[in-house]
């Protein structure tokens, strides 16, 4: 296991100067506490990015870290103390109630002037991002637990912009105490009171296209691939790309996943027509137009999920998409012919019109060297298509990955026979577990995608009980765990399955989708050392449903069954081969 934790105090950055935007500095801090994990990661990469990827006119792709202003953790402390918020925050109040209480509270008086000055100087969209003490630390995997809010920041009146900014800061603060975060702390056996939140205020990478603002593409790249397919190797990493804001990737939506060693290879699916169905159909953008309904406690208050058609109208698809030709069931690079557009990023990845893949590989390598472990990075890219094609890549985040390298052997003969409850050649994670006596599973006979939200709720309630008792369990369900689209799987959030130790993602004839490979909870699964096993009903993996059915039931809800075993299961997952087996 590689260990790394990045955390800087405010002293590493220059104090915020109200003329910051007139200077060449790319980072500054308001306050005197810590910068939090996310901000620290970016600061760590600042010089490496500047040295290795000089943003001069000769580069086809210029790489930079968007300017950031960090509100250090002491600002959060002052906010909590001055408004006496801890009682409310640590109570059992609902997320909305906590968020409302935070909106009513006042920011520390000594920083509001800086925020007012900041907002007076910037008129482009801003991302208000969490950067907590424990976030992105290797053994405290809070990645993606806390909220980010994007704001258009285009109102002519600076007072309106200021109001929206401070609402967004309070929204991010409130997310520290949301149900989701609480479940993480419970799972870790830590106290929520330990957590402190810094906030990053950063310009959003993108361009205005009418009343929308978005980057041509966003991406997440990992230098270690837990589930390589075909010729790809784990050490070669994996990249997810999406049109528009990175929210599509973070939320586990449909994205384009490829190996940086084989950028031309499409994901393995049955047919081109099937591939078309499994690619992005809508994208996220910042709403720069008509003000939305006022709702400061909603993450997507100023975001819009737009259809691909809109991107075509904006002429942003030309270098990103392919076109499907149904007559011969194949894809043509680009948007020349008429037909359904498919987000394959082929002009860039296959035709290499800009060396994006090479840049990503170089960034991964550099980030690994700087961080000292396998890494996950996030970025966004805008393309300049007038004249020679060039691109600007904004480096948004780096976080160390926890990679288990213990050697576990799962032999072919172990994967067959009466003792096997489940077996698969598509498993994530690495290790042996002998402590699971509870199984929570979605009953295949009664499963219906139409009821997937109810199923998520039922699982959440059982999870709550098992977590309270400190019992780890095996979870089995159908379709993509954590899917934002309830028709593609069970739309749980992490807090609803946080107590699970092993998760099986299975298919059924009535839920026959491309499995998520754990992508929705990727970092968390791995950091919590949770094994993720994929079993397709078409084989070759298996689940012994008959045996499961015969186990005495502790609880039966409308769609979910909870059974307790007399003796614990043995779970073995070989991270190198992807083989996993659960023995009765």
């Amino acid at each position, binding site marked *: 296991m590689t260990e790394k934790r990045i955390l800087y105090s405010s002293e590493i950055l220059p104090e915020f100067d109200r003329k910051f935007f007139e200077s060449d500095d790319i980072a500054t801090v308001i306050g*005197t506490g810590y910068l939090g994990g996310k901000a620290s990661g970016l600061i760590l990469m600042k010089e490496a990015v500047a040295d290795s990827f000089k943003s001069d006119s000769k580069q086809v792709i210029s790489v930079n870290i968007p300017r950031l202003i960090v509100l250090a953790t002491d600002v959060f402390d*002052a906010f909590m103390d001055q408004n006496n918020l801890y009682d409310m925050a640590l109570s059992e109040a609902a997320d909305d109630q906590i968020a409302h209480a935070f909106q009513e509270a006042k920011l520390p*008086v000594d920083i509001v*002037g*800086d*925020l007012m000055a900041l907002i*007076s100087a910037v008129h482009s969209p801003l991302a208000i991002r969490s950067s907590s003490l424990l976030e992105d630390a290797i053994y405290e995997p809070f990645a993606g637990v806390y909220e980010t809010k994007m704001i258009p920041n285009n109102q002519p009146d600076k*007072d309106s912009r200021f*109001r929206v900014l401070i609402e967004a800061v309070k929204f991010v603060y409130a997310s520290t105490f949301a149900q989701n975060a609480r479940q993480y702390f419970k799972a870790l056996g830590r106290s929520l009171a330990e957590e402190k939140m810094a906030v990053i205020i950063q310009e959003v990478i993108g361009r205005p296209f009418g009343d929308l603002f978005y980057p041509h593409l966003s991406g997440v790249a990992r230098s270690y691939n837990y589930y390589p397919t075909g010729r790809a190797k784990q050490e070669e990493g994996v990249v997810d790309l999406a049109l528009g804001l990175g929210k599509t990737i973070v939320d586990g939506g449909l994205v384009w996943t490829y190996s940086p060693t084989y950028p031309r290879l499409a994901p393995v699916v049955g047919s081109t027509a099937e591939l078309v169905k499994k690619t992005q159909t809508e994208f996220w953008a910042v709403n720069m137009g008509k003000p939305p309904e006022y709702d400061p406690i909603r993450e997507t208050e100023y975001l819009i999920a737009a259809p691909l058609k809109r991107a075509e109208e904006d002429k942003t698809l030309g270098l990103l998409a392919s076109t499907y030709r149904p007559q011969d069931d194949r894809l043509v690079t680009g948007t020349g012919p008429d037909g359904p557009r498919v987000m394959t990023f082929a002009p860039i990845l296959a035709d290499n019109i800009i060396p994006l893949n090479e840049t990503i590989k170089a960034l991964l390598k550099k980030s690994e060297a700087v961080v000292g472990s396998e890494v996950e990075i996030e970025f966004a890219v805008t393309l300049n298509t007038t004249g020679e094609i060039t691109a600007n890549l904004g480096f948004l985040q780096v976080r160390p990955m926890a990679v288990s390298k213990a050697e576990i052997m799962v032999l072919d003969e172990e994967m067959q026979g009466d003792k096997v409850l489940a077996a698969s050649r598509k498993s994530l994670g690495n290790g042996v577990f002998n402590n699971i006596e509870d199984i929570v599973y979605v009953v295949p006979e009664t499963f219906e995608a139409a009821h997937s939200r109810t199923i998520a709720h039922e699982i959440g309630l059982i999870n709550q009980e098992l977590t309270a008792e400190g019992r780890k369990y095996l979870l089995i369900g159908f379709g993509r765990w954590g899917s934002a689209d309830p028709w593609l799987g069970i739309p749980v959030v992490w807090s609803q399955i946080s107590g699970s130790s092993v998760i099986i993602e299975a298919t059924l004839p009535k839920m026959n989708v491309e499995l998520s490979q754990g992508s929705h909870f990727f970092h968390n699964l791995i950091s919590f050392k949770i094994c993720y096993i994929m079993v397709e009903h078409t084989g070759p993996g298996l689940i012994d449903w008959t045996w499961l059915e015969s186990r005495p039931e502790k609880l039966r809800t409308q769609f979910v069954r909870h059974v307790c075993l007399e003796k614990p299961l043995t779970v073995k997952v070989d991270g190198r081969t992807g083989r996993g087996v659960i023995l009765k």
Partner: protein
Amino acid sequence: MGNEKINPYKMAQAQFDKAADLLGLEPNVRELLRQPLREYQFVIPIRSVDGDVKVFKGFRVQHNDALGPCKGGIRFHPLETIDQIRALSMLMTWKCAVVDIPLGGAMGGVVCDPHTLSTKMQERLCRGWVRQMSKNIGPFTDIPEPDIMTNPQHMLWMLDEYEVLHGGRYPGAVTGKPVTVGGALGRTEATGFGVVYMLREALKKLKLKPKDTVASVQGFGNVAQHVIRLYEQLGGKVICVSCWNHHDRVAYSFRKEDGLEFKTLLSITDDFGEIDKDKARDIGCEVLPEDAWLEQEVDILIPAALEYQIAMNNVESINGRVKIIAEGANTPITDEAEAVINRMGILVIPDFISNSGGVICSYFEQVQSNSNHYWAKDEVFGKLDVKMTAAFINVCELAEKRGINLRDAAHLIGVARVAQACRERGWI
């Protein structure tokens, strides 16, 4: 304690003359600006509950309204004089101009001791003052606000009388109202917090961090309390506070070398800002003579009580460690004492930028009241900070450019802006 023979109006005029010299103002401009545009002196007969009629002397001086409607306080004080009111109205003109708010300067008052008047009498006095002035004040002419010994309740009575006389609702006619009836959030804290915004910028200029500094404060009223509160939040340590003791009729300085914590101090203080002497001893304070606050070995002195507290008789007792004096009160340093302070190399943040948070917030209240739309506290303090910091930076830049102190630079900016407005209006 300071020199009581000073004529404040003459002192204000002398300061103006100095600025006028530096600016090379023409004689007619000087003549216009070194005296008020309008003065109102009147009497207010008030019938008491037992039928007696008492007659009070009232004032309103509107020094200059070239930049916008006049703005200034109303004081109730038994020793009030027309010269004091004139001086303060002039100071308000420069103060509004230097912090760049579109208002002119005014000041008013009544010669009375409100402690000896019943609540009913105070209400009648407020209403009587408005009856005398109602044609010459209003949301777009002259907007009163509280000052010494007047409070939000007094302002509300005044507004109510004004609205009765004018037949409508004019919430922007008076500021400093209770928050429940059109007052601005943040008004209570504004002056004190504003002093600290200036102090913070001055510390940056001297490359000092608040957490590495120690301060001594004169006064523990509203301004001083909010100064101490925010300074402490920034990491600074207050080791000495002086305040008036009503019973002994003398001021004391309370010192605690390892720091006076604001919350603890507040817990042993009454509603008038008077720290309980015995309880102070209980929490480990030394109780020292009134001027001891000035003699402390600290980096920062904050006079936030009354006028002329640092004068020739005590200026020499300032400790050599002091680097900054931030004036929370109006004119706490006499001209002669300031000359000595300048020679000591101490940076003085002059009153009319240092304590301008109050008038800026009053201006915010006027704007909010006129539009009948009220801002959140975050927004008020955000705007206040930006306005004050910008003013401080402007004043510092001019001071450095011309090799003068901050007070002269602030005067220069204020006077120049008003003179320019007079010229553009075609008055001169």
